[in-house]
């Protein structure tokens, strides 16, 4: 009969040495270390897929709007000419098409513009309504973005309605494509699909609906996202002007060097995401595309001439204009 292990002389025990144990632990550690990025990548892939689904839903909503009203929604509504008047943007106009018809009615969007409704006798449902967090406007990859309300730097304080009844609008990780130009004055036309009082019909997209972008992403951490309800200042520059609802082609995709609020090159006026290496966009045909940071970017600046039709413009700039005559396929 064999003696129990602990009665064996030293050196004959059947046990692992400390070094062997450490090596095993090191190997396990290395394996976990190799596996962890893959797990994280898989989780990000799932979030990105959900993010793209939301974008698709918004694009289909915009196309339904086009069939029903014979035009895409306005980028923002310019009916209130006062400085710092809050105004509805495309997100609020699309509510009925993304199963938010009750909220659309609650906000009284067909009754009046945002500032007027906030100052009207029925202000209470409007104030609560614009603070609604709507999942369709939020990208799950935008982790750490808070409670679904706009970033502190994008609050609407200074607005006419805000002065009477303070509120924090619901955030949107998706902003519209205003076009090539950095124009912040009221309802001046731009070369994209969503600008002040725009009513672009699909027939006017001469570059082709599948070759023109409609919506893109903007993350909160780097670029302070936007607001679905609207804008604060139809004539305004700055972080609470029209760029809470739309973006232009001058800022580089995922600009990371300049401050987010650098005017006009910061990504607070452009498009960005936390997906590694690019951002999701929806085309005017309703398809969703991942556009990489590597995309050719060359912006012919200035707003006096027809600069968006200049053949020196890059692929990114061409995709953000509807009628530049320089149509390119989405890479």
């Amino acid at each position, binding site marked *: 009969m064999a003696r129990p292990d602990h009665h064996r002389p030293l050196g004959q025990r059947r046990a692992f040495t400390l070094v062997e144990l450490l090596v095993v632990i090191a190997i396990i550690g290395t394996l976990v270390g190799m596996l962890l990025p893959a797990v994280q990548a898989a989780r990000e892939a799932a979030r990105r897929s959900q993010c793209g689904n939301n974008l698709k839903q918004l694009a289909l909503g915009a196309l339904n709007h086009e069939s029903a009203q014979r035009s895409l929604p306005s980028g923002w509504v310019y009916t209130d000419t006062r400085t710092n008047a809050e105004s509805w943007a495309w997100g609020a106009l699309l509510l009925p098409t993304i199963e938010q018809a009750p909220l659309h009615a609650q906000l009284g969007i067909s009754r009046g513009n945002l500032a007027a409704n906030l100052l009207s006798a029925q202000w209470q449902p409007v104030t609560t309504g614009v603070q609604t967090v709507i999942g369709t406007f939020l990208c799950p990859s935008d982790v750490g973005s808070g409670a679904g309300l706009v970033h502190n730097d994008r609050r609407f304080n200074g607005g006419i309605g805000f002065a009477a009844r303070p509120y924090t609008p619901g955030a949107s990780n998706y902003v519209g494509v205003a076009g090539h130009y950095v124009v912040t004055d009221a309802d001046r036309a731009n070369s994209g699909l969503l600008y002040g009082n725009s009513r672009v019909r699909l027939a006017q997209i001469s570059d082709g609906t599948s070759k023109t972008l409609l919506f893109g992403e903007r993350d909160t951490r780097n670029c302070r996202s936007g607001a679905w309800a609207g804008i604060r200042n139809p004539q305004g520059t700055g972080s609470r002007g029209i760029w809470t609802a739309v973006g232009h082609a001058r800022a580089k995709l995922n600009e990371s060097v300049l401050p987010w609020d650098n005017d006009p090159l910061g990504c607070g006026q452009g498009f960005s995401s936390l997906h590694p290496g690019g951002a999701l966009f929806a085309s005017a045909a309703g398809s969703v595309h991942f556009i990489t940071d590597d995309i*050719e970017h060359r912006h012919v600046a200035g707003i006096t001439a027809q600069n968006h039709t200049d053949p020196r413009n890059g692929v990114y700039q061409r995709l953000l204009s509807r009628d530049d005559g320089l149509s390119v396929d989405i890479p």
Partner: protein
Amino acid sequence: MKIPFAVLRTPPHRLALVAACCLVAIGCSGRSDIGRVDGVITLDGVPLAGAHVTFQPTSGGPPSRAVTDAAGRYELRYSRALAGARVGDHEVTISTLDKGNPDAEPPRPPRPERVPDRYNRRTTLTASVAHGGSRFDFQLTGSTARTPDDAVRR
């Protein structure tokens, strides 16, 4: 039960060294079409701080950017993850213009252009980025405040 522990007789620090080398090799496999770029920018001999430097590739691709520090030094960034610029010819623009942010707390005031427009809007600066990195120092002359034709334009 016999387990071949021969591999484990290798000293563990040596194993760790091999593993570390593998990881470093994976991590450092940067892109061959991107070269690191840095340098110093002066305006009339004085280091130019807070200027935006843009390298726009003439043969396609996105621009690379940097902002100079107090000593006028810059290092270009291609994207969030990558430092450098595309290998090849670039058109270079240098500017201090910032329209400011009236909504920031406290508001950020606009900052005027100090660099003459032959270095930005009508730039003639070029640079050719090489594989493995390049260094470009720019000695600019004639700040806008002193340029007579610029004074007329205002």
